[in-house]
């Protein structure tokens, strides 16, 4: 089976029903997307497929025929994505486990809506659970990445 992840074609040997998350993590060694619930209830596994946010823990790998982007594919420590830079500037992460999913949601949101309101942010991030309660700083970072005024 062939997947396109972060611009590279990769070959994996997976059952068609295997969720994309496990194909990425266990078979392809791409660790950015995280396992949190397995039922699309927490958002830690969020990746982009053809630009749209998808919970990879419930997408069968056989349906992942589009271009897959994980957090590893949006930026690197040497060349950060503006959303990643905003996350650092606002010191968002605590435990950090949900943040790859949060950041991918932010990337998807800002791609479609370059200047989101608080309501737009609420509507986009309700599926991304954070047990550390970083929500106020997520808000601030999304606005900062959008070029708006910083600060929660």
């Amino acid at each position, binding site marked *: 089976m062939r997947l396109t992840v972060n611009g590279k074609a990769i070959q994996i040997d997976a059952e068609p029903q295997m969720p994309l998350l496990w194909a990425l993590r266990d078979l392809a060694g791409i660790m950015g997307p995280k396992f949190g619930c*397995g039922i*699309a209830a927490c958002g830690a596994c*969020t990746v982009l497929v053809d630009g*749209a946010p998808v*919970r990879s823990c419930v997408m069968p790998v056989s*349906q992942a025929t589009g271009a897959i982007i994980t957090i590893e594919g949006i930026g690197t420590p040497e060349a950060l994505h503006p959303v990643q830079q905003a996350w650092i500037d606002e010191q968002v992460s605590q435990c950090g486990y949900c943040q790859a999913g949060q950041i991918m949601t932010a990337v998807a*949101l800002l791609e479609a809506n370059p200047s989101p309101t608080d309501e*737009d942010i609420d509507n986009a991030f309700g*599926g991304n659970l954070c047990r550390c309660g970083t929500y106020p700083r997520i808000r601030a970072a999304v606005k900062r990445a959008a070029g708006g005024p910083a600060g929660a």
Partner: protein
Amino acid sequence: MRFVVALALLALPAPVLAQEAASPQGLAEWQKIYEVFSHPRCANCHTEDDHPRWSGAHYGPTRIHPFNVRRGPDGFGNTGLTCQTCHQETNAQILHGPPGAPNWHLAPAEMVWFEKSSAQICAQIKDPARTGGMDLEEVAVHVRDDALVAWGWDPGPGREPAPGSAEETFAALERWTALGAPCPAEESGE
């Protein structure tokens, strides 16, 4: 007998007239259709407000879909959290995993079934202004052929399916239409 009917005709306003004239068979066919439309597998996504609903074993009493899931501009959710973010083209095979079918989305707000009476749903389905322009024949074909509608009878692990089948509901719609598509009277107290 005829005398009683004549009295009723005098007493009732015009729209109800047709119902009184309805064949019991027609109403019986509608009842089958209503049981499908009002079933949680269908009605939970035919809501009037912005939110789909959750219900069933392990989900507690019927409640608003959590995670701030909303209708969005086109019924497909909001940017960053669309229906397709979680609902794939097929059901998740894991218990409590999201159900899936092609084009998962909320029905238009005017096509509201959730918490609506049999009479209200009946009136709605006969009104092309509230069916996205479909007449009854088109509604029947839609029920028979649409993949998202079909999901209602194959809702994945742990969920109770809608009664009957797509084919049976299609047939009931055809028979009901042929019998004049009668609607039931609004129940007292409504």
